Protein backbone atom coordinates (compact mmCIF):
# COMPACT_ATOMS: atom_id res chain seq x y z
CA UNK A 1 0.00 0.00 0.00
CA UNK A 2 2.78 2.44 0.93
CA UNK A 3 4.46 1.72 -2.40
CA UNK A 4 1.25 2.41 -4.22
CA UNK A 5 0.71 5.73 -2.42
CA UNK A 6 4.27 6.77 -3.26
CA UNK A 7 3.84 5.73 -6.91
CA UNK A 8 0.53 7.55 -7.10
CA UNK A 9 2.06 10.67 -5.51
CA UNK A 10 4.86 10.60 -8.08
CA UNK A 11 2.34 10.28 -10.90
CA UNK A 12 0.78 13.58 -9.87
CA UNK A 13 4.05 15.40 -10.61
CA UNK A 14 3.42 15.74 -14.38
CA UNK A 15 -0.06 17.14 -13.66
CA UNK A 16 1.40 19.57 -11.13
CA UNK A 17 3.97 20.67 -13.71
CA UNK A 18 1.08 21.10 -16.15
CA UNK A 19 -0.80 23.30 -13.70
CA UNK A 20 2.30 25.38 -13.02
CA UNK A 21 2.82 25.73 -16.77
CA UNK A 22 -0.77 26.88 -17.22
CA UNK A 23 -0.36 29.45 -14.44
CA UNK A 24 2.93 30.59 -15.94
CA UNK A 25 1.37 31.02 -19.37
CA UNK A 26 -1.58 32.77 -17.73
CA UNK A 27 0.80 35.31 -16.18
CA UNK A 28 2.51 35.87 -19.52
CA UNK A 29 -0.79 36.29 -21.38
CA UNK A 30 -1.93 39.18 -19.22
CA UNK A 31 -2.55 42.27 -21.32
CA UNK A 32 0.27 44.80 -20.98
CA UNK A 33 3.28 44.60 -18.71
CA UNK A 34 2.89 41.72 -16.18
CA UNK A 35 4.97 43.63 -13.60
CA UNK A 36 2.64 46.62 -13.89
CA UNK A 37 -0.43 44.39 -13.59
CA UNK A 38 0.94 42.53 -10.57
CA UNK A 39 2.03 45.72 -8.83
CA UNK A 40 -1.42 47.28 -9.24
CA UNK A 41 -2.50 50.57 -10.74
CA UNK A 42 -1.24 52.70 -7.85
CA UNK A 43 2.31 51.30 -7.89
CA UNK A 44 5.27 53.60 -8.36
CA UNK A 45 7.81 52.98 -11.17
CA UNK A 46 10.31 51.82 -8.53
CA UNK A 47 7.87 49.23 -7.20
CA UNK A 48 7.13 48.01 -10.75
CA UNK A 49 10.85 47.73 -11.45
CA UNK A 50 11.34 45.83 -8.20
CA UNK A 51 8.62 43.34 -9.17
CA UNK A 52 10.11 43.00 -12.64
CA UNK A 53 13.46 42.08 -11.13
CA UNK A 54 11.84 39.86 -8.53
CA UNK A 55 10.02 37.93 -11.27
CA UNK A 56 13.07 37.96 -13.52
CA UNK A 57 11.06 39.25 -16.45
CA UNK A 58 14.25 40.47 -18.12
CA UNK A 59 15.67 36.92 -18.22
CA UNK A 60 15.10 34.14 -20.85
CA UNK A 61 11.69 32.43 -20.67
CA UNK A 62 13.00 29.04 -19.48
CA UNK A 63 14.93 30.74 -16.65
CA UNK A 64 11.76 32.63 -15.75
CA UNK A 65 9.79 29.36 -15.65
CA UNK A 66 12.42 27.66 -13.48
CA UNK A 67 12.36 30.60 -11.07
CA UNK A 68 8.55 30.56 -11.09
CA UNK A 69 8.58 26.82 -10.24
CA UNK A 70 11.10 27.37 -7.47
CA UNK A 71 8.87 30.02 -5.89
CA UNK A 72 5.81 27.81 -6.28
CA UNK A 73 7.54 24.94 -4.49
CA UNK A 74 8.17 27.29 -1.56
CA UNK A 75 4.53 28.47 -1.77
CA UNK A 76 5.77 31.95 -2.51
CA UNK A 77 2.82 33.18 -4.57
CA UNK A 78 3.61 36.86 -4.32
CA UNK A 79 1.54 39.58 -2.70
CA UNK A 80 -2.03 40.67 -3.29
CA UNK A 81 -2.25 43.79 -5.43
CA UNK A 82 -5.21 44.94 -3.31
CA UNK A 83 -4.15 44.26 0.27
CA UNK A 84 -0.38 43.81 -0.16
CA UNK A 85 -0.66 40.72 2.08
CA UNK A 86 1.14 37.55 1.00
CA UNK A 87 -1.20 35.59 -1.31
CA UNK A 88 -0.65 32.38 0.61
CA UNK A 89 -1.98 34.09 3.77
CA UNK A 90 -5.08 35.34 1.93
CA UNK A 91 -5.73 31.89 0.49
CA UNK A 92 -4.98 30.08 3.76
CA UNK A 93 -7.43 32.30 5.67
CA UNK A 94 -10.29 31.37 3.29
CA UNK A 95 -9.48 27.71 2.75
CA UNK A 96 -11.11 26.33 5.95
CA UNK A 97 -14.42 27.99 5.05
CA UNK A 98 -14.50 26.41 1.60
CA UNK A 99 -13.38 23.06 3.03
CA UNK A 100 -16.20 23.17 5.61
CA UNK A 101 -18.75 23.89 2.90
CA UNK A 102 -17.38 21.23 0.56
CA UNK A 103 -17.26 18.52 3.22
CA UNK A 104 -20.77 19.36 4.47
CA UNK A 105 -22.06 19.28 0.88
CA UNK A 106 -20.39 15.94 0.05
CA UNK A 107 -21.75 14.36 3.26
CA UNK A 108 -25.25 15.64 2.47
CA UNK A 109 -24.98 14.48 -1.13
CA UNK A 110 -23.91 10.97 -0.07
CA UNK A 111 -26.59 10.80 2.64
CA UNK A 112 -29.33 11.51 0.11
CA UNK A 113 -27.80 10.39 -3.19
CA UNK A 114 -26.75 6.85 -2.27
CA UNK A 115 -30.07 5.79 -0.63
CA UNK A 116 -32.02 7.44 -3.47
CA UNK A 117 -29.98 5.53 -6.06
CA UNK A 118 -30.34 2.26 -4.14
CA UNK A 119 -34.12 2.60 -3.76
CA UNK A 120 -34.39 3.51 -7.44
CA UNK A 121 -32.40 0.41 -8.46
CA UNK A 122 -34.26 -1.93 -6.11
CA UNK A 123 -37.61 -0.81 -7.56
CA UNK A 124 -36.68 -0.20 -11.22
CA UNK A 125 -39.24 1.25 -13.61
CA UNK A 126 -41.70 2.06 -10.81
CA UNK A 127 -42.93 5.50 -9.81
CA UNK A 128 -40.16 5.72 -7.16
CA UNK A 129 -37.51 5.05 -9.80
CA UNK A 130 -39.02 7.58 -12.21
CA UNK A 131 -39.28 10.19 -9.43
CA UNK A 132 -35.62 9.73 -8.42
CA UNK A 133 -34.46 9.76 -12.06
CA UNK A 134 -36.43 12.92 -12.81
CA UNK A 135 -35.28 14.61 -9.59
CA UNK A 136 -31.67 13.76 -10.49
CA UNK A 137 -32.10 15.25 -13.96
CA UNK A 138 -33.63 18.37 -12.39
CA UNK A 139 -30.69 18.58 -9.98
CA UNK A 140 -28.16 18.41 -12.81
CA UNK A 141 -30.00 21.03 -14.85
CA UNK A 142 -30.69 23.50 -12.05
CA UNK A 143 -28.40 26.55 -11.80
CA UNK A 144 -26.88 26.26 -8.34
CA UNK A 145 -26.92 30.03 -7.80
CA UNK A 146 -30.62 30.20 -8.60
CA UNK A 147 -31.44 27.35 -6.25
CA UNK A 148 -29.47 29.19 -3.55
CA UNK A 149 -31.51 32.35 -4.09
CA UNK A 150 -34.79 30.41 -4.03
CA UNK A 151 -33.78 28.73 -0.75
CA UNK A 152 -33.08 32.19 0.68
CA UNK A 153 -36.55 33.34 -0.44
CA UNK A 154 -38.20 30.31 1.16
CA UNK A 155 -36.22 29.75 4.36
CA UNK A 156 -34.97 33.24 5.14
CA UNK A 157 -37.60 35.61 3.76
CA UNK A 158 -40.89 33.67 3.94
CA UNK A 159 -40.32 31.19 6.80
CA UNK A 160 -37.62 33.26 8.58
CA UNK A 161 -35.97 30.05 9.77
CA UNK A 162 -32.38 30.39 8.57
CA UNK A 163 -29.94 33.24 7.91
CA UNK A 164 -29.70 34.45 4.30
CA UNK A 165 -25.90 34.64 4.33
CA UNK A 166 -22.67 35.12 6.20
CA UNK A 167 -20.97 32.90 8.77
CA UNK A 168 -20.86 32.50 12.54
CA UNK A 169 -23.09 29.57 13.48
CA UNK A 170 -24.10 26.11 12.29
CA UNK A 171 -27.32 27.57 10.91
CA UNK A 172 -25.25 29.58 8.44
CA UNK A 173 -23.87 26.37 6.92
CA UNK A 174 -27.24 24.75 6.17
CA UNK A 175 -28.45 26.66 3.10
CA UNK A 176 -25.06 26.96 1.37
CA UNK A 177 -24.31 23.26 1.85
CA UNK A 178 -27.77 22.18 0.60
CA UNK A 179 -27.26 24.42 -2.44
CA UNK A 180 -23.81 23.07 -3.14
CA UNK A 181 -24.92 19.48 -2.60
CA UNK A 182 -27.85 19.79 -5.02
CA UNK A 183 -26.15 18.88 -8.25
CA UNK A 184 -23.63 16.49 -6.71
CA UNK A 185 -26.48 14.51 -5.15
CA UNK A 186 -27.98 14.07 -8.60
CA UNK A 187 -24.79 12.59 -10.07
CA UNK A 188 -24.30 10.29 -7.07
CA UNK A 189 -27.91 9.05 -7.27
CA UNK A 190 -27.58 8.34 -11.01
CA UNK A 191 -24.31 6.48 -10.62
CA UNK A 192 -25.57 4.51 -7.61
CA UNK A 193 -28.69 3.46 -9.52
CA UNK A 194 -26.74 2.37 -12.61
CA UNK A 195 -24.15 0.42 -10.61
CA UNK A 196 -26.69 -1.18 -8.28
CA UNK A 197 -28.79 -2.34 -11.24
CA UNK A 198 -25.74 -4.08 -12.64
CA UNK A 199 -24.69 -5.61 -9.32
CA UNK A 200 -28.21 -6.80 -8.50
CA UNK A 201 -28.23 -8.89 -11.68
CA UNK A 202 -24.99 -10.68 -10.80
CA UNK A 203 -24.89 -14.36 -9.84
CA UNK A 204 -23.60 -13.73 -6.32
CA UNK A 205 -26.67 -11.58 -5.57
CA UNK A 206 -28.94 -14.38 -6.79
CA UNK A 207 -26.95 -16.84 -4.65
CA UNK A 208 -27.33 -14.59 -1.59
CA UNK A 209 -31.08 -14.42 -2.18
CA UNK A 210 -31.39 -18.18 -2.74
CA UNK A 211 -29.60 -18.78 0.57
CA UNK A 212 -32.63 -17.15 2.13
CA UNK A 213 -30.90 -13.99 3.30
CA UNK A 214 -33.10 -11.05 4.10
CA UNK A 215 -33.49 -8.59 1.20
CA UNK A 216 -32.00 -5.81 3.34
CA UNK A 217 -28.86 -7.86 3.94
CA UNK A 218 -28.60 -8.78 0.26
CA UNK A 219 -28.87 -5.14 -0.79
CA UNK A 220 -26.58 -3.63 1.80
CA UNK A 221 -23.98 -6.35 2.43
CA UNK A 222 -23.80 -8.01 -0.97
CA UNK A 223 -24.88 -5.47 -3.56
CA UNK A 224 -24.05 -2.03 -2.18
CA UNK A 225 -20.64 -3.12 -0.93
CA UNK A 226 -19.72 -4.21 -4.46
CA UNK A 227 -21.22 -1.11 -6.02
CA UNK A 228 -19.17 1.22 -3.85
CA UNK A 229 -16.12 1.59 -6.12
CA UNK A 230 -17.83 3.43 -9.00
CA UNK A 231 -19.78 5.43 -6.41
CA UNK A 232 -16.56 6.52 -4.69
CA UNK A 233 -15.13 7.42 -8.11
CA UNK A 234 -18.08 9.61 -8.93
CA UNK A 235 -17.94 11.24 -5.47
CA UNK A 236 -14.27 12.05 -6.10
CA UNK A 237 -14.93 13.37 -9.58
CA UNK A 238 -17.83 15.47 -8.34
CA UNK A 239 -15.44 17.22 -5.99
CA UNK A 240 -14.27 19.19 -8.99
CA UNK A 241 -17.81 20.22 -9.82
CA UNK A 242 -18.24 21.10 -6.20
CA UNK A 243 -15.23 23.44 -6.29
CA UNK A 244 -16.70 25.16 -9.34
CA UNK A 245 -20.07 25.33 -7.59
CA UNK A 246 -18.42 26.74 -4.47
CA UNK A 247 -17.50 29.88 -6.41
CA UNK A 248 -21.19 30.50 -7.15
CA UNK A 249 -22.59 29.32 -3.82
CA UNK A 250 -20.17 31.46 -1.83
CA UNK A 251 -21.23 34.47 -3.89
CA UNK A 252 -24.94 33.87 -3.23
CA UNK A 253 -24.47 33.44 0.52
CA UNK A 254 -21.64 35.98 1.00
CA UNK A 255 -19.61 33.06 2.33
CA UNK A 256 -15.97 34.12 2.86
CA UNK A 257 -14.33 31.19 1.06
CA UNK A 258 -11.80 30.60 -1.67
CA UNK A 259 -14.39 30.83 -4.45
CA UNK A 260 -15.52 34.27 -3.34
CA UNK A 261 -11.87 35.32 -3.11
CA UNK A 262 -11.34 34.31 -6.77
CA UNK A 263 -14.39 36.29 -7.94
CA UNK A 264 -13.44 39.38 -5.92
CA UNK A 265 -9.89 39.13 -7.27
CA UNK A 266 -11.08 38.79 -10.87
CA UNK A 267 -13.31 41.84 -10.46
CA UNK A 268 -10.38 43.78 -8.92
CA UNK A 269 -7.88 42.32 -11.45
CA UNK A 270 -5.75 41.09 -8.53
CA UNK A 271 -3.81 38.53 -10.58
CA UNK A 272 -1.45 37.14 -7.91
CA UNK A 273 -4.45 36.14 -5.80
CA UNK A 274 -6.30 34.65 -8.80
CA UNK A 275 -3.21 32.59 -9.61
CA UNK A 276 -2.71 31.45 -6.03
CA UNK A 277 -6.34 30.53 -5.41
CA UNK A 278 -6.59 28.61 -8.71
CA UNK A 279 -3.37 26.77 -7.90
CA UNK A 280 -4.75 25.73 -4.51
CA UNK A 281 -8.03 24.62 -6.13
CA UNK A 282 -6.03 22.51 -8.63
CA UNK A 283 -3.96 20.99 -5.80
CA UNK A 284 -7.10 20.19 -3.82
CA UNK A 285 -8.62 18.48 -6.85
CA UNK A 286 -5.51 16.36 -7.38
CA UNK A 287 -5.33 15.43 -3.69
CA UNK A 288 -8.97 14.35 -3.66
CA UNK A 289 -8.41 12.14 -6.72
CA UNK A 290 -5.37 10.63 -5.03
CA UNK A 291 -7.35 9.97 -1.85
CA UNK A 292 -10.10 8.32 -3.91
CA UNK A 293 -7.56 5.98 -5.50
CA UNK A 294 -6.17 5.04 -2.11
CA UNK A 295 -9.66 4.44 -0.68
CA UNK A 296 -10.24 1.90 -3.50
CA UNK A 297 -7.65 -0.38 -2.00
CA UNK A 298 -9.43 -0.35 1.34
CA UNK A 299 -12.88 -0.84 -0.10
CA UNK A 300 -11.97 -3.55 -2.59
CA UNK A 301 -9.32 -6.07 -1.53
CA UNK A 302 -9.31 -7.43 -5.10
CA UNK A 303 -7.38 -4.35 -6.14
CA UNK A 304 -3.67 -5.01 -5.87
CA UNK A 305 -1.20 -2.23 -6.36
CA UNK A 306 2.06 -3.86 -7.32
Amino acid at each position, binding site marked *: MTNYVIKRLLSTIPVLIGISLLLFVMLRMLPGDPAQVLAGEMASPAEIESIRQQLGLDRPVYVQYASFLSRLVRFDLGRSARTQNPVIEEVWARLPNTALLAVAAIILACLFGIPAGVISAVRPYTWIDYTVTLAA*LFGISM*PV*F*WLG*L*MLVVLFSIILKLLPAGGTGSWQHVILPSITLASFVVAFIAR*MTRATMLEVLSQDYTTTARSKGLKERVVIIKHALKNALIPIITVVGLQFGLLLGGAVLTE*TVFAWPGLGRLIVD*SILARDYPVIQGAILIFGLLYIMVNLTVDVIYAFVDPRIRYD
Partner: protein
Amino acid sequence: MTEINPKAAPGKNQAKGLDSPLRRSWVKLRRNKAALVGGTMILIYAACALLAPVLFSGNPSAPNLAKSLDPPSIDQLLGTDELGRSILGRIIHGSQISLLIAVGVVSFGLILGVPLGLVSGYYGGKIDFGLQRLTDMLLAFPGFLLALALVAILGVGLKNTVISIGISMVPIYIRLVRGCVLSVREEIYVEAARASGTRDRVILLKHILPNVMVPITVQTSLGMGTAILFAAGLGFLGIGVQPPTPEWGAMLGSARVYIFNAPHAATFPGIAIFLAVLSFNLLGDGLRDALDPRFKL
Protein backbone atom coordinates in the same frame (compact mmCIF):
# COMPACT_ATOMS: atom_id res chain seq x y z
CA MET B 1 -33.46 -5.63 -28.22
CA THR B 2 -31.75 -4.27 -31.31
CA GLU B 3 -28.36 -2.80 -30.59
CA ILE B 4 -26.45 -0.29 -32.65
CA ASN B 5 -22.89 -1.20 -33.40
CA PRO B 6 -21.04 2.07 -33.97
CA LYS B 7 -18.05 0.14 -35.22
CA ALA B 8 -19.90 -1.23 -38.19
CA ALA B 9 -19.24 0.77 -41.31
CA PRO B 10 -22.61 1.53 -42.88
CA GLY B 11 -22.60 1.12 -46.62
CA LYS B 12 -24.45 3.60 -48.84
CA ASN B 13 -27.22 1.22 -49.71
CA GLN B 14 -27.58 0.04 -46.15
CA ALA B 15 -27.86 3.64 -44.88
CA LYS B 16 -30.68 4.30 -47.31
CA GLY B 17 -32.44 1.03 -46.57
CA LEU B 18 -35.43 0.61 -44.35
CA ASP B 19 -33.44 -1.36 -41.81
CA SER B 20 -30.45 0.97 -41.69
CA PRO B 21 -28.85 1.75 -38.30
CA LEU B 22 -29.80 5.40 -38.82
CA ARG B 23 -33.45 4.52 -39.29
CA ARG B 24 -33.48 2.15 -36.33
CA SER B 25 -31.92 4.89 -34.18
CA TRP B 26 -34.53 7.37 -35.39
CA VAL B 27 -37.33 4.95 -34.47
CA LYS B 28 -35.80 4.40 -31.02
CA LEU B 29 -35.34 8.12 -30.56
CA ARG B 30 -38.98 8.82 -31.44
CA ARG B 31 -40.11 6.24 -28.88
CA ASN B 32 -37.99 7.85 -26.16
CA LYS B 33 -40.32 10.19 -24.26
CA ALA B 34 -37.49 12.10 -22.55
CA ALA B 35 -35.84 12.84 -25.89
CA LEU B 36 -39.16 13.92 -27.38
CA VAL B 37 -39.93 16.26 -24.49
CA GLY B 38 -36.36 17.63 -24.62
CA GLY B 39 -36.51 18.06 -28.39
CA THR B 40 -39.86 19.84 -28.22
CA MET B 41 -38.59 22.17 -25.51
CA ILE B 42 -35.51 22.96 -27.62
CA LEU B 43 -37.73 23.76 -30.61
CA ILE B 44 -39.81 26.17 -28.48
CA TYR B 45 -36.62 27.71 -27.09
CA ALA B 46 -35.11 28.10 -30.57
CA ALA B 47 -38.38 29.58 -31.86
CA CYS B 48 -38.31 32.11 -28.98
CA ALA B 49 -34.76 33.05 -29.92
CA LEU B 50 -35.48 33.38 -33.64
CA LEU B 51 -38.80 35.20 -33.22
CA ALA B 52 -37.70 37.38 -30.28
CA PRO B 53 -38.19 40.69 -32.13
CA VAL B 54 -41.72 39.58 -33.12
CA LEU B 55 -42.69 38.16 -29.71
CA PHE B 56 -41.44 41.24 -27.88
CA SER B 57 -41.17 44.17 -30.20
CA GLY B 58 -39.89 46.81 -27.74
CA ASN B 59 -36.31 47.45 -26.71
CA PRO B 60 -35.68 44.97 -23.87
CA SER B 61 -32.91 47.17 -22.48
CA ALA B 62 -34.81 50.48 -22.41
CA PRO B 63 -35.30 51.53 -18.76
CA ASN B 64 -38.64 52.72 -17.34
CA LEU B 65 -37.88 53.71 -13.75
CA ALA B 66 -41.52 54.49 -12.97
CA LYS B 67 -42.21 50.75 -13.18
CA SER B 68 -39.16 49.61 -11.20
CA LEU B 69 -39.57 46.13 -9.63
CA ASP B 70 -43.31 45.88 -10.39
CA PRO B 71 -44.62 42.41 -9.46
CA PRO B 72 -46.18 40.15 -12.12
CA SER B 73 -49.48 41.51 -13.42
CA ILE B 74 -51.74 41.38 -16.50
CA ASP B 75 -49.66 44.18 -18.08
CA GLN B 76 -46.32 42.65 -17.18
CA LEU B 77 -46.75 38.90 -17.00
CA LEU B 78 -43.43 38.29 -15.23
CA GLY B 79 -43.09 41.73 -13.65
CA THR B 80 -40.28 44.22 -14.15
CA ASP B 81 -36.65 44.46 -13.03
CA GLU B 82 -34.88 47.20 -11.04
CA LEU B 83 -34.84 49.49 -14.07
CA GLY B 84 -38.50 48.87 -14.89
CA ARG B 85 -37.73 46.67 -17.90
CA SER B 86 -40.07 43.81 -18.77
CA ILE B 87 -38.60 40.57 -17.41
CA LEU B 88 -40.57 38.55 -19.99
CA GLY B 89 -39.18 40.66 -22.81
CA ARG B 90 -35.65 40.32 -21.49
CA ILE B 91 -36.02 36.56 -21.06
CA ILE B 92 -37.31 36.23 -24.64
CA HIS B 93 -34.45 38.33 -26.01
CA GLY B 94 -32.06 36.58 -23.61
CA SER B 95 -32.88 33.27 -25.31
CA GLN B 96 -31.03 34.62 -28.38
CA ILE B 97 -27.94 35.31 -26.28
CA SER B 98 -27.93 31.96 -24.51
CA LEU B 99 -28.55 30.03 -27.73
CA LEU B 100 -25.77 32.00 -29.40
CA ILE B 101 -23.43 31.14 -26.53
CA ALA B 102 -24.42 27.46 -26.52
CA VAL B 103 -23.93 27.12 -30.29
CA GLY B 104 -20.70 29.17 -30.19
CA VAL B 105 -19.20 27.18 -27.32
CA VAL B 106 -20.07 23.78 -28.75
CA SER B 107 -18.82 24.81 -32.21
CA PHE B 108 -15.57 25.93 -30.61
CA GLY B 109 -15.23 22.61 -28.81
CA LEU B 110 -16.12 20.63 -31.94
CA ILE B 111 -13.90 22.56 -34.35
CA LEU B 112 -10.82 22.24 -32.14
CA GLY B 113 -11.53 19.08 -30.16
CA VAL B 114 -12.77 16.67 -32.85
CA PRO B 115 -9.84 17.06 -35.30
CA LEU B 116 -7.32 16.94 -32.45
CA GLY B 117 -9.01 13.84 -31.02
CA LEU B 118 -9.05 12.18 -34.46
CA VAL B 119 -5.37 12.91 -35.05
CA SER B 120 -4.38 11.91 -31.52
CA GLY B 121 -6.19 8.59 -31.68
CA TYR B 122 -5.31 7.71 -35.27
CA TYR B 123 -1.63 8.55 -35.38
CA GLY B 124 -0.69 7.79 -31.77
CA GLY B 125 2.99 8.21 -30.92
CA LYS B 126 4.44 11.57 -30.01
CA ILE B 127 1.47 13.57 -31.31
CA ASP B 128 -0.86 11.52 -29.13
CA PHE B 129 1.44 11.79 -26.11
CA GLY B 130 1.74 15.58 -26.44
CA LEU B 131 -1.99 16.10 -26.97
CA GLN B 132 -2.92 13.83 -24.09
CA ARG B 133 -0.60 15.63 -21.68
CA LEU B 134 -2.16 18.93 -22.78
CA THR B 135 -5.59 17.38 -22.17
CA ASP B 136 -4.50 16.10 -18.73
CA MET B 137 -3.36 19.60 -17.86
CA LEU B 138 -6.64 21.21 -18.90
CA LEU B 139 -8.73 18.50 -17.23
CA ALA B 140 -6.77 18.99 -13.99
CA PHE B 141 -9.06 21.98 -13.48
CA PRO B 142 -12.80 21.62 -13.04
CA GLY B 143 -14.51 23.02 -16.18
CA PHE B 144 -16.13 26.05 -14.58
CA LEU B 145 -12.91 27.03 -12.80
CA LEU B 146 -10.97 26.77 -16.05
CA ALA B 147 -13.52 29.01 -17.77
CA LEU B 148 -13.29 31.41 -14.82
CA ALA B 149 -9.48 31.52 -15.03
CA LEU B 150 -9.64 32.13 -18.78
CA VAL B 151 -12.17 34.94 -18.37
CA ALA B 152 -9.77 36.47 -15.84
CA ILE B 153 -7.12 36.56 -18.58
CA LEU B 154 -9.25 37.41 -21.61
CA GLY B 155 -11.65 39.83 -19.94
CA VAL B 156 -15.45 39.99 -19.73
CA GLY B 157 -17.97 40.13 -22.61
CA LEU B 158 -19.91 37.83 -24.94
CA LYS B 159 -16.98 36.87 -27.20
CA ASN B 160 -14.62 36.08 -24.34
CA THR B 161 -17.33 34.13 -22.53
CA VAL B 162 -17.74 31.89 -25.60
CA ILE B 163 -13.97 31.47 -26.01
CA SER B 164 -13.38 30.72 -22.32
CA ILE B 165 -16.13 28.13 -22.00
CA GLY B 166 -15.26 26.77 -25.46
CA ILE B 167 -11.64 26.15 -24.43
CA SER B 168 -12.84 24.35 -21.30
CA MET B 169 -14.88 22.02 -23.58
CA VAL B 170 -12.02 21.19 -25.98
CA PRO B 171 -10.25 18.59 -23.78
CA ILE B 172 -13.55 16.75 -23.26
CA TYR B 173 -14.00 16.36 -27.02
CA ILE B 174 -10.34 15.40 -27.55
CA ARG B 175 -10.58 12.66 -24.92
CA LEU B 176 -13.96 11.40 -26.13
CA VAL B 177 -13.06 11.27 -29.84
CA ARG B 178 -9.61 9.78 -29.19
CA GLY B 179 -11.11 6.98 -27.11
CA CYS B 180 -13.53 6.06 -29.89
CA VAL B 181 -10.90 6.34 -32.64
CA LEU B 182 -8.60 3.95 -30.76
CA SER B 183 -11.15 1.17 -31.16
CA VAL B 184 -12.42 2.10 -34.62
CA ARG B 185 -8.93 2.33 -36.19
CA GLU B 186 -8.38 -1.37 -35.52
CA GLU B 187 -11.45 -2.37 -37.54
CA ILE B 188 -10.98 -4.41 -40.70
CA TYR B 189 -12.57 -1.81 -42.99
CA VAL B 190 -10.04 0.80 -41.82
CA GLU B 191 -7.22 -1.65 -42.34
CA ALA B 192 -8.60 -2.45 -45.80
CA ALA B 193 -8.78 1.23 -46.67
CA ARG B 194 -5.21 1.70 -45.52
CA ALA B 195 -4.03 -1.34 -47.48
CA SER B 196 -5.70 -0.08 -50.64
CA GLY B 197 -3.62 3.08 -50.40
CA THR B 198 -6.37 5.46 -49.25
CA ARG B 199 -4.93 8.66 -47.85
CA ASP B 200 -5.04 9.18 -44.08
CA ARG B 201 -7.20 12.28 -44.44
CA VAL B 202 -9.82 10.33 -46.40
CA ILE B 203 -9.71 7.42 -43.92
CA LEU B 204 -10.19 9.85 -41.02
CA LEU B 205 -13.03 11.78 -42.61
CA LYS B 206 -14.87 9.03 -44.52
CA HIS B 207 -14.30 5.89 -42.48
CA ILE B 208 -13.52 6.90 -38.91
CA LEU B 209 -15.42 10.15 -38.31
CA PRO B 210 -18.87 8.74 -39.25
CA ASN B 211 -18.32 5.93 -36.77
CA VAL B 212 -17.54 8.20 -33.83
CA MET B 213 -20.50 10.50 -34.51
CA VAL B 214 -22.78 8.91 -31.88
CA PRO B 215 -20.79 9.96 -28.79
CA ILE B 216 -20.03 13.33 -30.41
CA THR B 217 -23.75 13.95 -30.99
CA VAL B 218 -24.62 13.01 -27.41
CA GLN B 219 -21.81 15.15 -26.00
CA THR B 220 -22.90 18.06 -28.20
CA SER B 221 -26.39 18.02 -26.74
CA LEU B 222 -25.15 17.71 -23.16
CA GLY B 223 -22.44 20.30 -23.89
CA MET B 224 -25.06 22.86 -25.00
CA GLY B 225 -26.72 22.56 -21.58
CA THR B 226 -23.38 22.87 -19.79
CA ALA B 227 -22.47 25.91 -21.90
CA ILE B 228 -25.72 27.67 -20.97
CA LEU B 229 -25.16 26.85 -17.29
CA PHE B 230 -21.51 28.03 -17.30
CA ALA B 231 -22.33 31.23 -19.22
CA ALA B 232 -25.18 32.00 -16.82
CA GLY B 233 -22.80 31.36 -13.90
CA LEU B 234 -20.23 33.78 -15.30
CA GLY B 235 -22.96 36.34 -16.02
CA PHE B 236 -24.29 35.94 -12.48
CA LEU B 237 -20.82 36.64 -11.05
CA GLY B 238 -20.59 39.79 -13.19
CA ILE B 239 -17.69 38.47 -15.28
CA GLY B 240 -19.63 37.10 -18.26
CA VAL B 241 -21.90 38.93 -20.69
CA GLN B 242 -22.29 42.48 -19.44
CA PRO B 243 -25.46 44.54 -18.84
CA PRO B 244 -27.57 45.92 -20.42
CA THR B 245 -27.42 42.81 -22.69
CA PRO B 246 -30.35 40.65 -21.55
CA GLU B 247 -28.31 37.60 -20.53
CA TRP B 248 -30.16 35.33 -18.11
CA GLY B 249 -27.28 34.87 -15.63
CA ALA B 250 -26.53 38.59 -15.54
CA MET B 251 -30.26 39.28 -15.00
CA LEU B 252 -30.18 36.96 -11.99
CA GLY B 253 -27.01 38.61 -10.74
CA SER B 254 -28.51 42.07 -10.73
CA ALA B 255 -31.82 40.82 -9.28
CA ARG B 256 -29.99 39.22 -6.34
CA VAL B 257 -29.67 42.59 -4.60
CA TYR B 258 -33.46 42.98 -4.60
CA ILE B 259 -34.25 39.44 -3.51
CA PHE B 260 -35.85 40.62 -0.23
CA ASN B 261 -38.42 42.99 -1.76
CA ALA B 262 -38.78 41.66 -5.31
CA PRO B 263 -38.05 37.91 -5.46
CA HIS B 264 -39.86 37.63 -8.81
CA ALA B 265 -36.97 39.42 -10.54
CA ALA B 266 -34.64 36.53 -9.66
CA THR B 267 -37.18 33.73 -10.01
CA PHE B 268 -38.06 33.87 -13.71
CA PRO B 269 -34.60 34.20 -15.32
CA GLY B 270 -33.58 31.19 -13.21
CA ILE B 271 -36.54 29.17 -14.48
CA ALA B 272 -35.54 30.09 -18.04
CA ILE B 273 -31.96 28.84 -17.48
CA PHE B 274 -33.25 25.69 -15.79
CA LEU B 275 -35.67 24.82 -18.61
CA ALA B 276 -33.11 25.48 -21.34
CA VAL B 277 -30.47 23.30 -19.64
CA LEU B 278 -33.07 20.63 -18.83
CA SER B 279 -34.17 20.44 -22.46
CA PHE B 280 -30.63 19.75 -23.72
CA ASN B 281 -30.00 17.24 -20.92
CA LEU B 282 -33.27 15.43 -21.70
CA LEU B 283 -32.39 15.26 -25.39
CA GLY B 284 -28.79 14.25 -24.62
CA ASP B 285 -29.91 11.45 -22.30
CA GLY B 286 -32.51 10.32 -24.82
CA LEU B 287 -29.99 10.35 -27.66
CA ARG B 288 -27.59 8.30 -25.57
CA ASP B 289 -30.24 5.73 -24.75
CA ALA B 290 -31.50 5.55 -28.33
CA LEU B 291 -28.24 5.64 -30.24
CA ASP B 292 -25.85 3.76 -27.98
CA PRO B 293 -27.01 2.24 -24.73
CA ARG B 294 -23.45 1.16 -23.93
CA PHE B 295 -22.40 4.79 -23.82
CA LYS B 296 -24.64 5.44 -20.81
CA LEU B 297 -22.66 6.70 -17.79
